[in-house]
């Protein structure tokens, strides 16, 4: 994977994984009641959490390769790459949190409530 592709993946993967897991879970919620099982919901959440973590890790590795420095406002590809790498880390973390927050009700609530 080229550096730019890795950087874009880091930035966009978190939000997109969240969006898909969220839509999938929302669409599955009525079925969880019909089949009296929340398993599918758990699976979606866990897979999404793992993927978000992976995307964070990918971005983190990029950031390390780029010198692990906080992005300044310098010109050229390096500072720009750093802001994307750190952006990937933070966005992945943010959406990890959002997916986690959405997993909480799955655990607390019954399938049909």
């Amino acid at each position: 994977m080229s550096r730019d592709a890795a950087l874009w993946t880091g930035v966009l993967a978190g939000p997109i994984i969240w969006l898909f897991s969220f839509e999938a879970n929302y669409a599955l919620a009525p079925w969880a009641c019909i089949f009296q099982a929340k398993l599918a919901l758990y699976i979606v959440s866990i897979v999404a959490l793992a993927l978000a973590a992976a995307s964070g890790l990918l971005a983190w590795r990029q950031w390390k390769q780029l010198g692990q420095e906080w992005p300044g406002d310098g010109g050229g590809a390096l500072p720009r790459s750093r802001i994307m790498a750190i952006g990937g880390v933070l966005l992945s973390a943010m959406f990890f949190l959002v997916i986690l927050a959405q997993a909480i009700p799955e655990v607390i609530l019954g399938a049909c409530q």
Partner: protein
Amino acid sequence: MTAEPMKPATLVSTILLLVLNGCAGHQQSAVDAAGPQAGRIETLFWFFLAILGAVFIIVMAAAAWTLTKRHRGIEQEPLERTHLPPPQTETRLTRVVTIATIATVVILFVLLVSSIVTGKGMAEFANSKNPMVIEVTGWQWWWQVRYQNSDPQQVLDTANEIHIPVGRPVMIRGTSQDVIHSFWVPNLHGKRDLIPSRITTEWIEADHPGVFRGQCAEFCGLQHAHMSVWVVAEPGDKFQAWFNSQLQPAPAPTDPVLQRGQQVFLNYACVYCHTIRGTTAAGQNGPDLTHFGTRQGLAANTLPNSMGNLGGWIVNPQSVKPGNHMATIAVNPDDLQPLLQYLQSLK
């Protein structure tokens, strides 16, 4: 207010509300719970208010501090050239902002869990044993009420006024005849939409006797403002007495004036829309009037139920509730008095 000892939160709310409203009754209020469901919501509300209020004060204080004189002179000189404070300031700021962000996350997770747990508690109310089932159907702009029972003899039709026994869970099964309405009696529970082609449910219970007002909460057209419902919570025996008397068909009038009134009712177009059990009137498009005389209000509680108001309503419904679907019927002046008296006699 209720007879229970006041919770501190309730006290705060009372003061807050009194400031703006004087001593008006709390018959339609989300912060004066009269049942377990609304009580859970109210408790959650005060919890949210306390936490969010504290957050608000802290953030405002932080913002206001930027305005103090003492503060504004800090580090002017270096800024003019670099437009950036020294690195140690930036590091300190990073620490503060990070802590604030983490605190935000923690607070939001606490609120999220408390909200979900409350929601779970409210949903578990649906497992209650021995519930009473009441079907509420929204119409433009009145409420059709049917007490369901496996025994067809025990099914009761009425309108715009719901009686419930204190301490017994009630399941409201809602649907709509025309557009979307929303059933909402804030002292007992939050709102539930009544949607055509769907059935929605809501569980309520009153923990003390009282009369609570509810109102349609989803915009439903011209007379959305005049679509209210009374919920009367009564002790079990009193409720049963009411229920039994309502099950009876309307008594045949013996008084000649009332007999005349009944004939007037049956001869005019009233019968196309209204039902009076015990007579030939069996219309299905308007409220059931079998025990009309017992009700507190008319025209979905737009007006108190009195002889004068009723006369005005029948003669010219459009002046009372512009746009409503009750037909204006040219009632012969001689016929009006007997008609009114007959309707009022339907106890």
